């Protein structure tokens, strides 16, 4: 059931003693996630949200053998937190932190190839498998168990779409935010591959943005998939050459505009929805929910 995580996945929170880390730990626990500990250097020995806090990932691993870690540490220290998690054998690292320098992320991604860890993010809302576990910051109430896989580069737009699906009675097998940064760990193709292999997933909603070529790179893979994929691309009204907040939304050399992405998908015969409600219509039409 679901991808990457399940109800037994043991999770530690790096940066648990911070305001956001602590609050999100609470919400994850309320969702049903098995938070087994937290890490904040210098705070080892205290408890936050009734779970023990350690000085280092090594100590948390020794005590709790976690499967995953979710990172809320400030951007200056986030790359190091990822290194620490990877060096200690954490299989799934979900990095929520926004604003990590892109040079740090290039080094991190290159380094992770030499380890067995998978990174989701950074600058991402994480992953939710309804009814099982949530590692990240998606609002608890919006999810509903079902058979649609959702993968997105955005944060709140993902909530919007997941919420809309649930309100329309369309449940999700998993919702995954890969993050909006220019250089990140897990790609659309990686997640599509997981959904393709997941028997619980019957169809996939993929939400893209202008900038980069992450969407285009997935086209060949989608064409080979046995499951239908409905795409939705935002940024149609963005003027070329303007930076749109997300570092990931820089348009350069005429590549990566919404129009070009949409054309590339449609040329490949992939469904492109025009709005969130249009996504719902497509799913209802196909009866894949």
């Amino acid at each position, binding site marked *: 059931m679901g991808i990457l995580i399940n109800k037994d996945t043991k999770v530690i929170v790096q940066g648990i003693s911070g305001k956001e880390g602590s609050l999100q730990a609470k919400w994850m626990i309320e969702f049903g996630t098995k938070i087994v500990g937290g890490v904040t250097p210098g705070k080892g020995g205290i408890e936050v949200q009734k779970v023990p806090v350690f000085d280092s990932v090594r100590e948390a691993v020794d005590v709790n053998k976690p499967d995953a870690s979710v990172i809320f540490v400030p951007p*200056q220290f986030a790359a190091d937190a990822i290194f620490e998690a990877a060096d200690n054998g954490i299989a799934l690292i979900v990095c929520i932190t926004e604003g990590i320098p892109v040079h740090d992320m290039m080094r991190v991604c290159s380094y992770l190839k030499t380890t067995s860890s998978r990174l989701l993010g950074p600058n991402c809302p994480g992953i939710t498998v309804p009814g099982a576990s949530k590692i990240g910051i*998606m609002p608890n109430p919006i999810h509903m168990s079902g058979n649609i896989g959702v993968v997105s580069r955005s944060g709140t737009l993902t909530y919007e779409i997941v919420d809309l699906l649930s309100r329309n009675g369309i449940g999700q097998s998993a919702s995954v935010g890969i993050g909006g940064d220019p250089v990140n760990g897990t790609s659309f193709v990686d997640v599509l591959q997981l959904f393709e292999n997941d028997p619980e997933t019957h169809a996939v909603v993929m939400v893209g943005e202008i900038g*980069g070529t992450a969407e285009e790179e997935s086209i060949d893979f989608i064409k080979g998939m046995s499951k239908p994929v409905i795409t939705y691309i935002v940024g149609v009204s963005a003027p070329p050459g303007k930076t749109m907040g997300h570092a990931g939304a820089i348009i350069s050399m005429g590549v990566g505009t919404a129009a070009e992405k949409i054309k590339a998908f449609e040329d490949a015969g992939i469904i492109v929805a025009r709005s969130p409600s249009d996504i719902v219509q497509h799913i209802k039409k196909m009866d894949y929910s």
Partner: protein
Amino acid sequence: MKLYEYAAKEIFLKYDIPIPKGSLVSDVNSAVDTVKRMGDVVLKAQVLTGGRGKAGGIARAKDANEATSNAQRILGMEIKGFPVKKLLVEEYRQPLKEMYLGITIDRQAKCPVIMVSPSGGIDIEEVARNSPDKIIKMNVHPLSGLHDYQARTLANSLDRAKSREIIDIIKKLYRIFIDNDCQLAEINPLAETEKGIIALDAKMIIDDNALFRHDFKGEETNSLEEVAQKNGMSYVGLDGDIGCIVNGAGLAMATLDMVTQYGGKPANFMDVRAGANAEQVKAALSIVSSNRNVKAIIINIFGGLTKCDEAARGIIEIFPLIRKPIIVRLSGTNEKEGRAMLGKYGIHMAASTEEAAKGVVELGNPDK
């Protein structure tokens, strides 16, 4: 953060990349004095945009007369909306050959990529479009760094006879790229002159996320973009009349798209980021409404870390001062509380992004 040419060249100087002798001036008299001292020079408008050459922002001056008229002209210019406040006065160096050298980030390969072309100069983008084989690209391993043979191979593809000088410049530019957290470090043209290879222009863009570990000073312009940035939000001005305030860049873009679909024209992009509090929402409303073109404002919050009641509190506090119609959509964390608060003040509300988008377009065009 974009650096001015003169600022980038100061860094080049520190790394010992050859550049023309030059002097930064901000008035005509200083420009003339410099020309008297240096002789044959080029006056270059210092603006944070490309295409200044084609716009007439670069001119040669061989004597005081030419310096006076050209400096006067250029210092009065506005290039793509950027007023020219400073001139870089540089000794003129006749280029025998103009090449291109640039380093940026290959997002797909997740590493720096060095690009060179023997055909540099102002038409490099055309070269990239029409003769992509004339652009040689080389990916660099983020941990291992630039290997010597890579610099050698790139240099040889530019000019075998001058490869030693070019290798040196490539290595130094790569160091600059890494040391300064660049998104772009570019020399165009990289010129061959009688006295050797030289960087005639210099362009650097620094990763804003990495500014905390550097000491670059941007010039204050107090633009709405900057005010937003100081408040931890991101704002981009557009040329429509619908003000937009959204939490999250993706949802913001989706909102703008829907406003456009319903026939409206967004006046701006604004992402108040996750976790925005009442103060930030207030600041966002103040920034967006200060654009005189704005006729109506859409506020679209999907509460996650951002709490809807917090957002509502911010709206209520500043609402009386705005004097422009506002439509608000609140969803997610503390949605009910937020909606109840706004309800008391009679603020327009929408149940979904689409309804809000449709609503704001109607509010902005009451006559239709």
